[in-house]
């Protein structure tokens, strides 16, 4: 057994021994991935898992290193890049990933990728 394997076993025992908690957080992430295009909020996510909103927030951040909001934005942006690259219009993409305002979507997209959705879309057709 390598030194690395020993270290992995030690970390797993110290940090990841609560299997029920981990399963709850993995299920939350999967739900976000499968429902990124819908109106998601903390009330809904915590009710599904039967835990308090604040506990869910803390656990998600602890295990994934991102807040639920950050993770949802990341998921939606990744999907929107895929949709834009496949030829969907900016407005269609905005609604398809769960945003309601094309203006806000474009601002967010540019702040995270450095390009507006239109420029990103056109660059994929060059």
């Amino acid at each position, binding site marked *: 057994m*390598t*030194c*690395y*394997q020993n270290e*992995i076993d030690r*970390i*797993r025992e110290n*940090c*990841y021994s609560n299997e029920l908690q*981990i399963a709850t*957080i*993995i299920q939350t*992430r999967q739900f976000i991935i499968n429902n990124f295009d819908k109106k998601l909020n903390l009330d809904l996510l915590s009710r599904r898992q039967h835990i308090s909103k604040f506990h869910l927030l803390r656990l998600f951040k602890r*295990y*994934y290193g991102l807040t639920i909001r950050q993770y949802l934005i990341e998921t939606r942006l990744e999907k929107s890049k895929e949709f834009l690259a496949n030829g969907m219009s900016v407005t269609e993409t905005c609604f398809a990933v769960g945003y309601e305002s094309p203006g806000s979507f474009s601002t967010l997209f540019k702040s995270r990728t450095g390009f507006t959705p239109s420029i990103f879309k056109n660059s994929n057709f060059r």
Partner: protein
Amino acid sequence: MKINVIGIPVQDQDKALKFYTETLGFVEKRDIPLAEGNRWLTVVAKEEQDGPELLLEPSPTSFEPARVYQKALYDAGIPYTQFSVDNVQEEYERLSRLGVEFSMKPTEMGTTKIAVFDDTCGNKMQIVEML
């Protein structure tokens, strides 16, 4: 400031290029000749060819401390870096069929699954799937 290139030490650039493209499935991006037969040699992910480049740098053969560091990590089984995959188990099976040796089989680690393989160029590398 952006992160465009991450370097990994390799003992033989030709062998590394073959392994990283033909076995792992990356795509060659830049191959620029430098002094003494060394090259600025980078590969990228097939699905993300405008993404960060992986520089296959020949540091272990030209800079002794790099060789010592690489060997120490290797001997301890510590991965030099890691790559994301959609499914660790499937990638483990695919690479095993191609003769790649794993020092750690697919292992769940909290909200991730990981495995560690030998890149044949002096490094252990980890693949990771977010669960």
